[in-house]
């Protein structure tokens, strides 16, 4: 029996579409709620990011509660950067108690890339250990071996990096995550479908669902900036050139076009099980992408 609506869809053959919303830097959640309303019926689940790029923001757990409130299906993102194992276990209990059962388990970006560079990095666990820990909680015990009163159940996911320039260590890690309990993967941004194909040749031997990450770029400059500064992003030169060749002001439009094109190809050629759209601040144009990539699976 599936633990959540999202898990139900995972277990079926439907082409999955998820997206993510970045919380605000501050207590004013009105815009975030607005995005949630815009997207909740158009996608299968919404991720709320957790201090993405180590920039301090409104927490993922709080965002997921809001998604639930607005009637959407949330995916909680937990990183190991800011909390030790006690805090993470506690957050998982809270999430489960409020019916938030989809959890994306991440190691987290390093403190240095963010805006609180002097903070203490925790990293009590890494993503693999976090997956294992969540699974162990499902069997009724915490990490200390103590019995839990009220045992949680989760639908667990993790990330993977098919476009990494040195792929073998990433595949080893991928396998470890699968063994540790990941059911679905949202990949880092895909720009070159060849890499995705190659990765899927390896990944399809495992009984997990892969959602290809699609980043919406707004300009060549943004692409280059992300290349240099954001961990896990490698934008191909072809895409950068494509963005550079449009007239001023039409960058985002181009970005939308590229995203839709990728999504369409993935779906038509059945390259993987779905996509995860990352609009990085431009959440409002996600519906446009979905439209442009018709026919696309919509919320059922």
């Amino acid at each position, binding site marked *: 029996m599936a633990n959540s609506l999202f898990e139900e869809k995972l277990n079926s053959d439907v082409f999955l579409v998820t997206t993510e919303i970045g919380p605000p830097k501050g207590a004013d959640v009105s815009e975030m709620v607005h995005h949630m309303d815009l997207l909740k019926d158009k996608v299968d689940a919404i991720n709320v990011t957790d201090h993405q790029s180590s920039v301090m923001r409104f927490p993922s757990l709080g965002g997921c509660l809001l998604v639930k409130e607005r009637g959407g299906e949330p995916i909680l993102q937990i990183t*190991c*950067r800011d909390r030790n*194992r006690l805090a993470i276990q506690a957050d998982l209990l809270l999430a489960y108690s409020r019916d938030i059962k989809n959890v994306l388990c991440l*190691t*987290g*970006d*390093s*403190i*240095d*890339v963010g805006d609180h560079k002097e903070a203490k*990095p925790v*990293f*009590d*666990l*890494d*993503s*693999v*250990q976090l997956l*294992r*820990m969540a699974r162990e909680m499902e069997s009724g015990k915490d*990490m200390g071996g103590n019995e839990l009163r009220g045992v949680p159940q989760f639908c667990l996911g993790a*990330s*993977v*990096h098919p476009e*990494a*320039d*040195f792929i*073998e*260590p*990433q595949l*080893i*890690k991928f*396998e*470890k995550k699968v*063994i*540790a309990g990941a059911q679905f993967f949202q990949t*880092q941004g895909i720009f070159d479908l060849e890499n995705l194909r190659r990765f899927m040749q390896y990944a399809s031997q495992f009984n997990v669902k892969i959602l290809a990450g699609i980043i919406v770029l707004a300009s060549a400059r943004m692409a280059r900036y992300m290349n240099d500064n954001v*961990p*896990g992003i*490698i934008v191909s030169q072809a895409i950068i050139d494509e963005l550079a060749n449009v007239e001023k002001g039409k960058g985002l439009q181009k970005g939308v076009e590229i995203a839709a094109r990728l999504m369409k190809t993935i779906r038509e050629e059945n390259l993987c099980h779905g996509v995860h759209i990352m609009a990085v601040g431009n959440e409002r144009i996600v519906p446009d992408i979905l439209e442009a990539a018709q026919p696309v699976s919509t919320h059922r």
Partner: protein
Amino acid sequence: MIVAEQKPVEEIRRVIAPYERVLLLGCGTCVTVCGAGGEREVSFLNSALRVAQARSGDGIHSFSEYTVKRQCDFEFLDVLADKVNEVDAILSLGCGIGVQVVAERFPDIPVLPGVNTSFMGMAKEWGVWDERCAACGDCRLAETAGICPITRCTKGILNGPCAGTKNGKCEANKDMDCAWILIYKRLERLQQLEKMRRYYPPRNFRVIPRPRRIVKKIDVDLGEDNG
């Protein structure tokens, strides 16, 4: 060995400001090797402080210098017993251990630090020192082909790499190699890649609670009946 870096002269000047007679105390072991607090550095600092004093005109300080073989053992400090009576403060260029041992040995006189003790590491070449060991107390170099993931991976994770590695370098510092790529390559060379496929559970941080202590001395029972 222990690698340290001398504090900026202005910081040192601020710290010694209230004291008239200051003994600049060097250490002949680790901080000599890394060029932070040996006899030469003591002499250089002395010169620099005197220049600062001469230029500013308010010359209340008088400096003396001495370098002991090590500051982290009491026996080496006996030779200072008379000297400390003639000064108002000691500026130690030894590592954090040295400063504290000197302070414990001479509790009636302020002992101030002159270096920032940074890490335990090695010299890659003259003038370049890299951190290698975090003293985690739970060494697992057998599993990672002799490359420490705690010190050389920014996040210190045990099931690496993370997604931030690019061109074999770390997301946090593009001059630093990604430790897990190094580990992968060396395990491959040793034909021991299965070590990387293993699941490594979270670290036991219990060895870390400060301050740590290691006891080599064994309590033996010297009962009357036994020889």
